């Protein structure tokens, strides 16, 4: 089974976000970066599928040269090959991103064989467009489902589960297919020392794609206004219980 996983380099969750002076990007100078959380799980899922069904995992990203760090991380947790679509690090809209990924995927399939499965994260942690995987699927004429938190391959079919409030929905997609997964589908493993060494040495196949014209142009980023604290302290320790239950009564919860 040949699987492609597409990931994005984003500032680590929990990091304090500071904007650049021109407000067109997040100031990256002092930030740790990571693979976007849903996509970290996509990598893990691809590696587990490979371990169950044999095959290989190719990890791909579109981003600045520094995104090699995220590709090598994916290799250190089990991906076999790394592919970088190198940009100047500026913001690519979903249409431009999907067009470049679809074109590179076609090239990779011509040279190395078709992908049975292409995995994406449901949405990136930063821009959250929710659409790159779906656009790539349409460009490649393949079925696609997103929001997936359970995945199995049964013969030529992907059995995919999506959580609803009260349980889950099941989808059956014929392979080859595209699936966008969510955090919680698995708990990603940590790299081992030998796998880190292997990842250091892996060759990253790098190309520089043309940026297609997209129709969503970012002007600037802004931070929401800080709201002044107006917390009502109901008390300290167990002695606060009557005041808390008074609040429950006021809100009509009892």
């Amino acid at each position, binding site marked *: 089974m040949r699987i492609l996983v597409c990931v994005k380099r984003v500032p680590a969750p929990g990091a304090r976000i500071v904007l650049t002076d021109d407000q067109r990007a997040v100031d990256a100078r002092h930030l740790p970066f990571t693979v976007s959380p849903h996509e970290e799980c996509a990598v893990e899922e691809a590696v587990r599928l490979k371990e169950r069904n044999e095959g290989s995992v190719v990890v791909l990203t579109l981003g600045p040269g520094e995104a090699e760090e995220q590709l090598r991380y994916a290799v250190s947790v089990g991906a076999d090959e790394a592919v970088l679509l190198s940009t100047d690090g500026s913001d690519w809209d979903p249409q431009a991103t999907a067009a470049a990924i679809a074109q590179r995927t076609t090239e990779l399939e011509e040279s190395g064989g078709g992908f049975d499965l292409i995995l994406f994260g449901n949405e990136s942690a930063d821009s*959250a467009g929710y659409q790159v995987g779906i*656009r790539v699927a349409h460009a490649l004429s393949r079925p696609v489902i997103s929001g997936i938190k359970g995945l199995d391959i049964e013969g030529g079919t992907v059995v995919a589960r999506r959580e609803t409030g009260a349980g889950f929905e*099941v989808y059956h997609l014929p392979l080859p297919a595209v699936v966008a997964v969510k955090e919680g589908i698995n708990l990603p493993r940590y790299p081992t020392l030998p796998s880190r060494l292997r990842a250091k040495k892996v060759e990253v196949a790098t190309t520089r794609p043309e940026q297609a014209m997209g129709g969503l142009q970012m002007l600037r980023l802004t931070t929401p206004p800080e709201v002044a604290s107006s917390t*009502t*302290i109901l008390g300290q320790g167990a002695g606060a219980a*009557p005041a808390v239950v008074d*609040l429950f009564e006021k809100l009509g919860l009892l």
Partner: protein
Amino acid sequence: MSEVLVFVEHESGVPLETSQQALTLAAMLGEVCVVTVGGCQVGGVARRLSIDHPLLSDYAPEAIGEALTQLIRSESPTALLAAGTERGNEVMSHVGALLAFPVATNVTEVRPSGESWELTRIRWGGSLFEEAVLTAPVKLATVAPHSFAAAPAAEAVDAEPFIPELPDTLGRTRVVERVTISQGITLTTAPVVVSGGRGVGSPEGFEILEELAGLLGGAVGCSRVVTNNGWRPHSDQVGQTGTRVAPNLYVACGISGAIQHWVGMMASKNVLAINNDPEAPMVTKADYAVIGDLHSVLGAIVAEVKRRKTPS
């Protein structure tokens, strides 16, 4: 006046709150035409179209995307909106891919400017805003939940049927089975969410949260560190990569309040933080706070609730 189509999601004919919020934005932008799959009690709009096709007997994102694309070609609206829900974002992405038009997800504001829209959309789950220009013959956008008040309920409008031509192959991404795990109160519908973070300390530490949630008819939630530690299932996780909740009361127990958690519960009407750190972001942002050890505070609250519930 130009027509704005709104894809309205509903449950057994009752429109979702998030779809009603999308209608509020739509009414600012043009004459509203609601589009539904199946019957839906929605009113206060100029027109309603009901997409009717055997393939759409259950949720089928590719087929709905194709049907909406055909509807756009036949009606030539200025825009198609949907709620920024899992399904809304998914269906709209299909429409964008089929038409090769851009899609702006989770917008909070739209300022029409000539042939384009200037808009604001959320990034980082709501901790940053992006101002952008959307240029397309038909504007496709989803509306960030809880950014607009819901359109008031009104007498339902009769629907005109719309019959799309859908190839059978699009049934390949239709729901084939539904499995119900929990019945009754869920995180998204609970009036109270009692949520725990690192400070709860262990899986067993959640028992007192379960007890309080049970007494209040609520549900238990948790932060990302809790699911990463394997203390609770991921389905309980509230936050940017988990579930978004908007209960009447959110009780945050031992949760420091990182922005990724905050964006998952900031739509709550009231927030009560219980934390031993008075400087924790969750405490300073909450409406109400109790400073102290969460286990002793929760134990006392549970005892007090039981005392008041017992008829004297």
